């Protein structure tokens, strides 16, 4: 029992988290563009509504109350729109509410006490709602406003609604009458009975004036109609329309309940009448040589029963009389159908029937009496009129075409007005399971190569089938591997999105103007890494806002635009992810940094010996904080050293670049501990090494006389006018049995940032996608990483290849020289 609750709570937290993120995104986008689109309003409304519902279920009453109040406001906005004047208040209110909800979420997650009340927020929400209503009051004095609109949200309707005679016609829509269009869950089945039960439930709390379709009790065919077009009910109640809607949506199997205005209702009913009453006469011809036409026809009738009502067909004795096959072959198979489908949809359905060659479809008059008449007429005339089917069909066709057009339009209209609910097709999976999946995948690949390269196969010649199966297996395991990898990768955009909010809040709080520009949000990073770098990024953005960006006056004086820019970018360079946080603020002053560091006693050598870069890195030393006063956002004792620590925890590095007066950027280099990259396999002394394709400029054979040797014996080579050092990998790594003559090996011109060099290896093996795995921790103590080995990968044959980090190799070699 407890675990069931836990699970529900987990789901709830997950759902809330996602919804609040969406909410922030919508709010910030709307605030930026200073407009609230219809979509945004419905989105916020939906989010509030969902949170309200699920928090009520979890008995989190405060959350439910707050969201309820906000939902009310958005209901008004959705119905009537909102004035620009209210925007600031609205966004502030909503973002504060979002913060409050998030804090409650955190409290639940950490098992902390939940807030008992938040009257301030609720009062603000109510006040805002009243303000909105007041503003709307002025607007809606226009006579054109439908009665239902104003009547519904106004609690002023005090007189008991049932005082109205219940026999009121549907379309009249008296005071307090509301029309709802209700859709049931897609696969609940028996929609007519569901609707009937809904009506009985409604009768308990309101006065149900009318509903459509009327004959739900007795006519099972209405299930189809309700499924396609929804169920419309008109009722009178003391409840407001929002409450009513809420009530409706809580009912069993109801997927959505929408309030309709009188106009909408009229249109809706008209439309429904059109569609449901539509009778069609269809004449179907089967393919010439399919045979057994009577059985084909019988099957067609059966298959049609799911989507429409087959009233009659001719010949009628297809089941029992095999001779009807001949008849159908000659004259076609006639049917009278009643279907809620549009003309063209029905035509399509018919055409898709097995062995159907051609279909002639004709709509009959909608009135049942008339259709009855025409039904009999066609039934009897069918055999008679066969003499001239071609002549008869011609005028029909013209009519058909017109009709088809009309129907299509109708159809489109319907599609536009009724939004199909987007089905959620995402699931959440625990990372542990994905890790296990990865490991299994690895084992599978190795086992595959064990089978395929089994020594038992040696000497066998006739292996055609085996090889075929092997190729198939390889293809499948490759695909599977790709899939497993891609599951773990998520775009970094979610993390970036959160920063928008921080920048916005800090602009307000600090009286600064700044804009956050994001780039490369669609860069995919392993989920585990994203989680661990979200905090450092947030910290750096705060820091940029607080310490980097100047106040508008300062900026004006410095000749910069008043609005500062913070750029947040992500880039996959192949081996690592570069995340850059840069601002165009005041930049770093190395002198000031050094003074400050001296004062705090964190210098490890005389200040004069510090290079600019080293001075910048002082920022990340524990016990350093450049700003005297502690602000709300940064300088709370958690220094930048935590950023560095967190980044290093995932094996990354931090770099700072700055230009005094022009801003600074912090670059986080995060290794892809688990990522697919394109690699180039090279061989060196019989072993395989892998270089990331992105770090390779080109590879070429060189002649010994092209090599330039300087006075210290360092080798270099000239490529298009520039000289690059040659790095003999076998010397760096002391690899025995490697090619030592440059002419016999191959040079790979590699690049890392601004550094460039040529690596000498034995030969190129080929290109392939590789899975980057970290080196075992045990090897860290031997300084393997500083020697340019950043990780390893398991090759297709189960062997391991070391991944070379070009940047580290160049650094190491230059250091040695």
């Amino acid at each position, binding site marked *: 029992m407890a675990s069931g609750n836990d699970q529900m709570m987990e789901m709830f937290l997950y759902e809330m988290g996602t919804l609040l993120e969406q909410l922030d995104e919508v709010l910030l986008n709307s605030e930026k563009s200073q407009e609230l689109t219809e979509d945004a309003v419905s989105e916020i409304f939906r989010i509030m509504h969902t949170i309200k519902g699920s928090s009520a279920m979890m008995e989190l009453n405060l959350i439910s109350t707050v969201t309820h109040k906000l939902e009310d406001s958005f209901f008004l906005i959705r119905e009537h729109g909102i004035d620009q004047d209210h925007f600031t208040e609205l966004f502030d209110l909503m973002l504060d509410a979002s913060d409050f909800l998030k804090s409650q979420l955190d409290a639940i997650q950490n098992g902390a006490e939940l807030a008992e009340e938040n009257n301030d927020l609720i009062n603000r929400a109510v006040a805002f709602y009243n303000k909105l209503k007041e503003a709307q009051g002025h607007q809606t004095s226009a006579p054109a406003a439908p009665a239902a609109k104003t009547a519904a949200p106004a609690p002023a309707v005090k007189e008991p609604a049932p005082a109205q005679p219940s026999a009121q016609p549907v379309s009249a829509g008296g005071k307090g009458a509301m029309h709802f269009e209700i859709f049931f869950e897609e696969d609940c089945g028996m929609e007519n009975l569901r609707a009937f039960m809904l009506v009985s439930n409604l009768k308990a709390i309101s006065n149900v004036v009318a509903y459509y379709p009327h004959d739900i009790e007795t006519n099972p065919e209405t299930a189809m109609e309700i499924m396609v077009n929804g169920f419309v009910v008109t009722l009178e109640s003391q409840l407001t329309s929002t409450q009513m809607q809420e009530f409706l949506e809580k009912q069993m199997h109801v997927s959505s309940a929408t309030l309709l205005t009188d106009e909408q209702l009229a249109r809706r009913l008209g439309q429904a009448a059109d569609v449901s009453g539509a009778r069609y006469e269809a004449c179907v011809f089967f393919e010439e040589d399919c045979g057994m036409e009577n059985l084909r026809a019988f099957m067609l009738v059966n298959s049609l029963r799911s989507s429409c009502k087959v009233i009659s067909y001719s010949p009628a004795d297809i089941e029992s009389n095999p001779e009807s096959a001949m008849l159908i072959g000659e004259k076609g198979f006639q049917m009278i159908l009643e279907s809620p489908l549009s003309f063209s949809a029905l035509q399509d359905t018919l055409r898709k029937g097995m062995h159907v060659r051609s279909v002639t479809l004709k709509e009959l008059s909608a009135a049942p009496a008339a259709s009855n008449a025409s039904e009999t007429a066609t039934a009897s005339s069918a055999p008679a009129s066969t003499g001239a089917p071609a002549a008869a069909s011609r005028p029909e066709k013209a009519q058909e075409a017109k009709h088809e057009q009309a129907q299509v339009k109708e159809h489109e209209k319907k599609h536009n007005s009724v939004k199909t609910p987007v089905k959620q097709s995402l699931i959440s999976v625990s990372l542990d399971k994905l890790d296990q999946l990865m490991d299994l995948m*690895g084992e599978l690949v190795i086992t595959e190569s064990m089978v395929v390269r089994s020594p038992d196969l040696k000497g066998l010649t006739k292996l055609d089938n085996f090889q075929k199966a092997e190729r198939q297996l390889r293809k499948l395991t490759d695909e599977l591997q790709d899939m497993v990898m891609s599951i773990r990768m998520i775009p970094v955009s979610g993390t970036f999105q959160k920063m928008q909010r921080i920048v916005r809040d800090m602009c307000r709080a600090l009286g600064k103007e700044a804009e956050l520009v994001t780039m490369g949000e669609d860069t995919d990073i392993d989920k585990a890494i994203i989680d661990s770098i979200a905090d450092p990024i947030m910290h750096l953005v705060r820091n940029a806002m607080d310490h980097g960006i100047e106040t508008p006056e300062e900026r004006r004086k410095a000749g910069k635009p008043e609005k500062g820019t913070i750029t947040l970018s992500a880039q996959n360079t192949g081996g690592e992810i570069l995340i850059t946080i840069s601002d165009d603020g005041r930049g770093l002053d190395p002198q000031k940094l050094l003074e400050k560091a001296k004062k705090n006693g964190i210098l490890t050598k005389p200040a004069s010996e510090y290079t600019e870069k080293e001075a910048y890195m002082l920022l990340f030393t524990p016990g350093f904080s450049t700003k005297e006063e502690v602000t709300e956002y940064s300088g709370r004792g958690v220094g930048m050293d935590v950023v560095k620590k967190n980044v290093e925890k995932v094996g990354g590095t931090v770099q700072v670049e700055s230009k005094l007066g022009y801003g600074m950027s912090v670059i986080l280099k995060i290794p892809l501990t688990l990522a697919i990259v394109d690699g180039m396999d090279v061989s060196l002394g019989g072993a395989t090494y892998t270089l990331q394709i992105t770090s390779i400029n080109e590879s070429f054979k060189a002649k010994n006389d092209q090599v330039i040797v300087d006075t210290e014996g360092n080798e270099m080579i000239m490529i298009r006018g520039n000289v690059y050092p040659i790095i003999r990998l076998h010397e760096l790594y002391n690899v025995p049995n490697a090619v030592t003559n440059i002419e016999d090996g191959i040079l790979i011109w590699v690049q890392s940032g601004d550094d460039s060099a040529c690596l000498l290896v034995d030969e190129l093996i080929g290109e392939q996608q590789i899975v980057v795995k970290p080196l075992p921790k*045990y090897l860290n103590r*031997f300084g*393997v990483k500083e020697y340019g080995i950043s990780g*390893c990968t398991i090759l297709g044959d*189960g062997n*391991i290849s070391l991944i070379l980090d070009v940047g580290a190799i160049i650094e190491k070699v230059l250091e040695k020289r």
Partner: protein
Amino acid sequence: MAQVQNNVVLTEQEEDTMHGKYLVFDLDNQQFAIPISHVIDIINMQPITWVPNCPDYVKGITNLRGKVCPIVDVRMRFGKEPQEYHDRTCIIVVEEQGAPVGLVIDSVSEVITIDDENISPPPKFSTSAEARFIQGVGRTDSGVKLILDYQAVLGEDNVIRVEEVE
């Protein structure tokens, strides 16, 4: 109910059965033992990828069912002459800081039980380099087994570090 109790008893027994059991292996004509509870796996010699800049006794890394596993040659770790690997050469996989590490030994012989009272501390005087990797000495019917302290084998080696610096 009875079944549940049985299960509990079983697991306790299992732990009991693990205790005092040692895997015996040969290394340079000496018999060593390692507590079986520390052993994750015993594998045959398989391809090892050499890693630059590591001491000689670190043979490289290998692929242990999708996990990258460093391989340490215990013989070389003891400072003895390396020997060609043959088809009886084995890798004993132990867990160190949550990750597997393989130890190359000459051959695995058997699993035996050594009672705690038959284990004495290692001799204080250390004549050989391997003395500091010995946890104790176990006496059995089939002779004396040296109990390997694998954590010392995989531990940081300050002595060698200093030599390297010099």
